[in-house]
């Protein structure tokens, strides 16, 4: 044995030497491959993470803290009195990355910005076109862009559209036109890192942008790895093959990783909402008493104990309290709509509704752990009052297709949305009703009774009044128990202690820790 070890140790030392370049950050996501790196389509967290390093918006959420906006490509901006005209003054000297056919790159101007916004507004070249209807874009001069709105919007609703998220990322015109369809796997932007290489199902390689307008990044480059198995990600982090990984949003996992030498776990906001939507158009959930019975049968505290109190936070209304117009649990409690667990009450309501023995429901759920596991806990909780959920597990995309075909009586939906308007419109406006709505979207509950409130709030410029209308709408939803908010789950990322993001990570709009010019490996 000794002789064997004597042979192996120097051997591994030799093989291990020079394995990775000093300053390349390796970050892994539990995904099998990228979907698209066109920022106006990118939706998966792993795609957004890459896009975020390559592109900029006109304004940006402060790194690590989404409660504030700061200049990005635009040095400054102003809005007209009536809130209809927004003018942005671009930072001169912003350089577009080199791309095939243009090894030097070029200076970004208002022409690119207008092109990019128009692309984001065009349903044939953007998944977010709906957010940009009723807007006109115009290049006033080389460094000035003007956006004119049909109807005025408050900053809360407008600025996210031009921030470093989704349609707000600025795509340089000439680069996009030169690459055509290839742009989705060869993104070209202005950000701190330049796309270098994509190895399908393996990784995307980015290198430092020495001409970045905030100064050259400290890292030599970034590699984004696709490792579908969370456990393999963790093992890679343990062995030092990876520096940052997306973790499992469960306290036990956090505890396990925190116990390992050299590793740090970040749990940060804002977090995604976890909500159960009840299909009110079909028996037995068309009966208010049945929906309330389900709400009374579920203990948020048990769910939170399962997920872990550091990761899961009580959520009592559909818009989370950290957004303008969100409701805190105290406010909901004051309105008497908390639905704290009460099995007696649940059984009594079921009896009144004519099903004292309970009933059974067939539901699909995605294999994705952050949906499936809490749903399994809900299943066990509901079993206590005789409600039997028969779960069929499907893959994530099948789940999203099936629930949009109205296949589930109860839909568990996990998401983050940039503001209250998007939450309420897409989940509770009658136009958004799945299958039958005017613009079928994600109204799984078939809610029809808050359309007027949603529309009124959207065009209210006074922020306080706007928030007040949004809150009223949510209390209506709770009265009718169209959906039951469970908890907010925060994001969990683990990293090697060598990684310094370069900013304090409190909340990241991007749902992942952003890597920027200040990030370094020590």
């Amino acid at each position: 044995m000794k002789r064997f070890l004597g042979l192996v140790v120097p051997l591994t030392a030799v093989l291990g030497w020079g394995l990775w370049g000093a300053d390349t950050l390796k970050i892994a996501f539990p995904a099998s491959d990228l979907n698209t790196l066109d920022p106006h389509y990118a939706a998966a967290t792993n795609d957004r993470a890459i896009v975020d390093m390559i592109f900029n918006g006109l304004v940006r959420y402060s790194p690590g803290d989404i409660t504030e906006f700061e200049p990005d490509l635009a040095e400054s901006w102003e809005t007209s009195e009536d809130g209809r005209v927004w003018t942005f003054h671009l930072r001169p000297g912003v350089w577009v990355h080199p791309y095939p056919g243009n090894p030097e790159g070029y200076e970004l101007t208002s022409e690119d910005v207008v092109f990019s916004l128009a692309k984001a507004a065009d349903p044939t070249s953007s998944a977010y076109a709906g957010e940009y209807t009723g807007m006109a874009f115009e290049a006033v001069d080389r460094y000035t862009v003007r956006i004119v709105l049909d109807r005025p919007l408050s900053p809360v609703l407008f600025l996210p559209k031009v921030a470093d998220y989704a349609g707000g990322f600025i795509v340089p015109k000439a680069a996009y036109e030169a690459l055509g369809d290839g742009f989705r796997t060869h993104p070209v932007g202005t950000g701190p890192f330049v796309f270098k290489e994509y190895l399908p199902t393996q990784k995307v390689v980015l290198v430092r942008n020495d001409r970045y307008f905030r100064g050259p990044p400290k890292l030599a480059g970034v590699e984004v790895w696709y490792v579908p198995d969370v456990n393999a990600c963790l093992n890679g982090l343990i062995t030092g093959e990876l520096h940052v990984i997306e973790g499992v949003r469960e306290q036990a996992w956090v505890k396990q990783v925190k116990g390992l030498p050299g590793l740090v776990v970040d749990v940060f906001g804002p977090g995604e909402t976890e909500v159960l939507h009840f299909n009110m158009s079909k028996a037995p959930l068309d009966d208010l008493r049945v929906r309330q019975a389900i709400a009374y049968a579920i203990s948020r505290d048990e769910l939170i104990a399962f997920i872990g109190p550091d990761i899961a936070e009580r959520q009592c209304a559909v818009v989370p309290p950290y957004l303008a117009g969100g409701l805190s649990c105290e406010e909901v409690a004051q309105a008497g709509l908390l639905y704290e667990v009460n099995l007696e009450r649940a059984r009594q309501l079921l009896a009144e509704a004519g099903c004292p023995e309970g009933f059974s429901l067939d539901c699909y759920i995605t294999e994705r752990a952050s949906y499936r596991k809490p749903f399994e806990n809900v299943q066990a909780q509901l079993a206590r009052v005789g409600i039997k959920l028969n779960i069929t597990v499907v893959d994530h995309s099948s789940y999203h297709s099936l629930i949009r075909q109205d296949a589930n009586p109860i839909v568990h939906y996990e998401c983050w949305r940039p503001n209250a308007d998007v939450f309420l419109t897409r989940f509770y406006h009658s136009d958004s009703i799945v299958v039958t709505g005017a613009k079928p979207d994600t109204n799984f509950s078939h809610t029809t009774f808050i359309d007027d409130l949603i529309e009124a709030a959207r065009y209210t410029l006074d922020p306080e009044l706007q928030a007040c209308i949004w809150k009223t709408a949510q209390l209506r939803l709770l009265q009718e128990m169209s959906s039951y908010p469970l908890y907010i789950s925060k994001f969990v990322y683990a990293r090697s202690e060598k990684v310094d993001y370069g900013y304090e990570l409190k909340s990241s709009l991007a749902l992942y820790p952003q890597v920027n010019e200040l990030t370094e490996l020590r």
Partner: protein
Amino acid sequence: MTKGHRIRSRRVRAFLRNRTAVVGAVVAILVAAIAVLAPVVSPHDPLEQDVYHRLAPPGGEHPLGTDDFGRDVLTRIIHGARVSLTVGVFSVLLAMGLGTFLGLAAGYFRGGVELVVMRVVDVLMAFPVLVMGLLVMAILGTGLGKLIVAIGVVLAPRFARLAYGAAVSVRETEFVDAARALGAGPWRILLRHILPNVFGEILVMGTLWTATAIRIEANLSFIGLGVSPPTPTWGNMIREGVNWIVVAPWLPVFPGLAILITVLAFNMVGDGLRDAVDPRLQT
């Protein structure tokens, strides 16, 4: 005593002399008994969650610890035996019935039946077993019945080939001619005269494929295409357990051992049966 009886009792004796095979049989019977008696022998309810006591280490009230929902691991392994054996046995019975029937028919009737059946068999045999299993489960979705059908469909062509070969080699022999001359119908000939000739081999293959079917089930469950939760299966217990390797390494290890022991037992029995049926192929 007829010749058939003599052969049979000689085979039984040969099997019983094979220590490995007997050990395998005892273990397999034990696992089957545990599966049948699961509700009686398990210490807890396999579905009862206790999230306040999750990932408890082995010992005390939970001999093999608890999983991430606070469910008793031993209980879930015991109940997992039900799924593994049900899938293993019934998918093979399905494959055996379907495959043997089609193979015999193809070999005996020849002509169009042969052409169609054997072409289908060729096509299905071109799929690697696991690839076919993945594909079928991806379409059908999860569930016990679907799992049985998926694995049954995957394995059926293997039995069809075996039965086909036997039927072809026997159909021209004198005793089949004699039976035909005595006015026996084709099905009677197939069942009374041809099937018994291959029955031993089919049984051997069935036992060995049961071992494989249990393994395939574990593979599919591990990828997440098995039985829906909260039903425990060994494969998905490993799948879930792997996430807790550092704090709770026993979670993937114990169900894996259960798979290994069960599959091993069926392989031992299969080997013993093969030696008994065909001493020439003694391994």
